[in-house]
């Protein structure tokens, strides 16, 4: 954990500018077994200090790979010079951004480090279980990945704080041969916010889910291609979470709204059916701690929920201080940075479609000819809200019953059109927090949602 050596530097912040000084350490641990071979055994730490200075609406930033008071002096100087350079050569002449209070945010969660041997031994136990239980696999991967951020933030006119974001996961990846001898793959993710011991003190709890993963893979090996076209489907929670993040979330990040996203003209207008509600949660979601809680952002703003869609109406965007000023609203605390050398950008935190009242089994029973799309491995979307999600596990629905598994496919649509077709929403939300979102820098994000019945374009043969 970082020692606070930066507090003393607050008195050196220049007058007439708005300053944030941030010390940060990122830790990563990675262990990979492929078919029983330990192919990666890596530990990494990167730390440093950065300063961001705002002068009349333009920013200077500097970072140094050294966590010291001398480095803090150097980056404060360089960031100030950069802001003054832009203010001279490309002036905006804007007034100082409004302040929304000052104070100190208390420390939330410790980062606990574990010996690499402990991690390797745990992965080996899981690998041996998979190898022994499922000899029909053509390959198996066990991947442990851990990343944590430890930040000390001092600001000229906002909140200060010491914040941490530890998370760790084990991926179990299996490949099997299909009926026509083609390799097919599925994976399951275990873990979440916290340190190794929080999730992997023992591994017996993982076995039923590993068994279920193999069951699904066997079903997939006997799978069929989806029929391409515009279909009625049920998006499982994994896909509706992806929808919340990729297809809607990015279009309502205020910097992308200013950049011309489709959400710009839709504020306070209908973008979905009455059943659609969506929120970017800061630290508490649906009565529990959010998967990746954020209490203080990297501009020193208290993080609060951003309500995006309410009963189908677009209600708001996610903001940093600059965009909040432009939209004449309060910032939501969405300014986040990945490493010590990154400036904060508007990023999502825990973005979710809210649950409804329907039961999944009733939703399946309501479809004569369609698909139940269960798992996704990736998603992308555009400023227009045109999205694509990969589907790695799903089933045909025939006459209200699940049919054969389907082979890998993709679904696409335009978010604000597709959301208007949502006519059933399940009562249970599932979350995923293992991924990164990419937008100049990467950042950990949580995404979640219930099952949604809707119409969507599906790819296939």
């Amino acid at each position, binding site marked *: 954990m970082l020692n606070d050596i930066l507090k003393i530097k607050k008195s050196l912040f220049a007058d007439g500018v708005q300053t944030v000084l941030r010390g940060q350490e990122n830790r990563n641990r990675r262990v990979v077994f492929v078919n029983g071979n330990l*192919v990666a055994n890596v530990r990494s730490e990167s*730390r440093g200090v950065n300063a961001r200075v705002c002068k009349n609406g333009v920013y200077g930033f500097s970072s*140094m790979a050294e966590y010291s008071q001398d480095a803090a002096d150097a980056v404060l100087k*360089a960031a100030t010079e950069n802001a003054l350079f832009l203010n001279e050569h*490309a002036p905006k002449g804007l007034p100082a951004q409004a302040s929304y209070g000052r104070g100190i945010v208390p420390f939330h969660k410790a980062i606990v480090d574990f010996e690499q041997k402990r991690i390797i031994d745990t992965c080996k136990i899981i690998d041996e279980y998979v190898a022994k239980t499922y000899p029909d696999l053509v390959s198996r991967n066990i991947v442990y990945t851990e990343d944590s951020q430890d930040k000390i933030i001092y600001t000229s006119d906002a909140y200060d704080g010491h914040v941490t974001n530890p998370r760790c996961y084990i991926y179990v990846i299996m490949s099997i041969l299909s009926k026509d001898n083609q*390799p097919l793959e599925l994976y399951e993710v275990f873990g979440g916010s916290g340190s190794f011991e929080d999730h992997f003190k023992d591994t017996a709890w993982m076995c039923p889910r590993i068994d279920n993963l193999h069951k699904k893979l066997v079903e997939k090996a006997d799978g069929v291609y989806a029929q391409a*076209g515009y279909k009625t489907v049920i998006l499982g929670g994994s896909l509706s979470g992806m929808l919340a993040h990729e297809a809607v979330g990015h279009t309502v990040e205020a910097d992308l709204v200013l950049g011309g996203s489709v959400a710009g003209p839709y504020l306070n207008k209908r973008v979905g059916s009455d059943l659609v509600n969506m929120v970017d949660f800061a630290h508490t979601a649906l009565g529990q701690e959010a998967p990746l809680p954020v209490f203080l952002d990297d501009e020193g703003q208290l993080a609060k929920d951003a309500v995006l869609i309410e009963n189908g109406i677009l209600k708001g965007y996610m903001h940093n201080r600059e965009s909040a000023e432009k939209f004449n609203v309060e910032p939501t605390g969405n300014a986040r940075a990945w490493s010590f*050398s990154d400036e904060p950008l508007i990023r999502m935190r825990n973005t979710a479609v809210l649950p409804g009242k329907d039961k999944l089994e009733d939703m399946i029973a309501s479809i004569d000819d369609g698909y139940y799309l269960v798992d996704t491995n990736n998603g992308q979307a555009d400023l227009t809200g045109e999205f694509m999600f990969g589907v790695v596990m799903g089933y045909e629905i025939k006459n209200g019953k699940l049919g054969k598994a389907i082979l890998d496919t993709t679904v696409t649509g335009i978010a604000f059109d597709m959301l208007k077709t949502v006519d059933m929403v399940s009562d249970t939300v599932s979350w995923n927090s293992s991924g990164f979102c990419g937008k100049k820098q990467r950042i950990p994000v949580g995404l979640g949602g219930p099952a949604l019945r809707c119409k969507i374009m599906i790819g296939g043969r």
Partner: protein
Amino acid sequence: MKNIRDISQRIENGFASKGISKFSYTLVEKETRELNAENGEFSLLRTLFDNNAVLTAYKDGKNGTVTGNDFSESGIDDLVASSVASAEAAIADPAHDFAPKQDAETFQQGVCTPDFGKFFDKVKDLIQDIKVEYPKIQIMNIIGEFVSRHVLYRNSNGTDFEGTSGAYGVTLEFSGHDGDKTTNLDYCGFETIDLDTRLIDQASVRYHLDNAQKQLEQISVTGKFDGNVIFTPECFAEFMMFTAANYLSDGTILEGTSLWKDKVGQQVASESLTVCLKSSDSRIVCGERFTGDGFRTEDLPIIENGILKNFMISLYTANKTGKPVSKNSSRDLIVESGSSSLDSLVKATEKGLIVGGFSGGQPSSNGDFSGVAKNSYYIENGEIKGAVSEVMINGNLGAMLIDIKGITAETVQDGGMVVPYVCVGGIVVSGK
């Protein structure tokens, strides 16, 4: 510690004191100056000083790797200790290794001393040129940067490579806007050492700006058909990266799931396709000089006239599988140009698409892909009928490379690749 050779000496002394006689490491000092413009206005200027060290220690046939950026004496000592502890925790596997002794080499690439004032003016001109020449383009972001690196690689076999490099980089993200009409986001980027040519005239910047304006007028494609797809150079390069990941790289070769694992020397693509990693090519800016395993980088033919020549695998995978190690770990991609023109490929297409981007993720292990055709145009009876959205393409990577219909003489060179337009058949195109 500011001198990279002093840091190197401390690392080796540290290994010696812990009884480690087998090791490799890379040290990188990196400085970045980066201009950011949002919505057509400069918004942020960044100056970044970063380091990176990657140390691998070997003990009793086991190895451990650590990375870090703390180049202080205590930081270096911690890295050495951590790498040794990681090695002790590992499982013995003699396949983990690095390159043998090679002659020492120092190299210098690209721009030694940047002219940041001139670069600032060039980026400013780029913003102004777009505003004047492409009035329907809304620029979301332009990032202009100069990155310089000082790199040292050493291993306990006596290999010593040291080099410096510097280059300018520009990336743009933008979309077309006309009244209520908005296009998909388009983007392009390039690395360069040329500050004399206008930035708007470099790489494929104009193609992408033209494209974003043309995408404002869209037509619908309905139903489903088998047709040709002409991939733009950037999009075909993306499919070459998919090919590498699915058939040629460590993951699938080590797992044994690559469908090409036994196909070196065999036909895997059309005779018209020749692909290599060519870091020495003068069109590649600051190409790779040594691999992650410590081999001096050599040009690596991947596919020659449709015949698979080499995999793209590390020494570990090579030792595990008995296949030759790849002495090029870059993505310095050269796809040999053909003799067609883009116009002739369009004229020869009865029904199909020009595809400028693919939103679909990595194809399945069996090569099947399915995704959205982005920044694309519909072709019918040899004519471009208009821009399209909500169109999906489905196919198989291996089958697609066999069914190449034509390759253009024209290429895009962005400093990291040289790739032509490539037309393939047998793609299922489906509209709404």
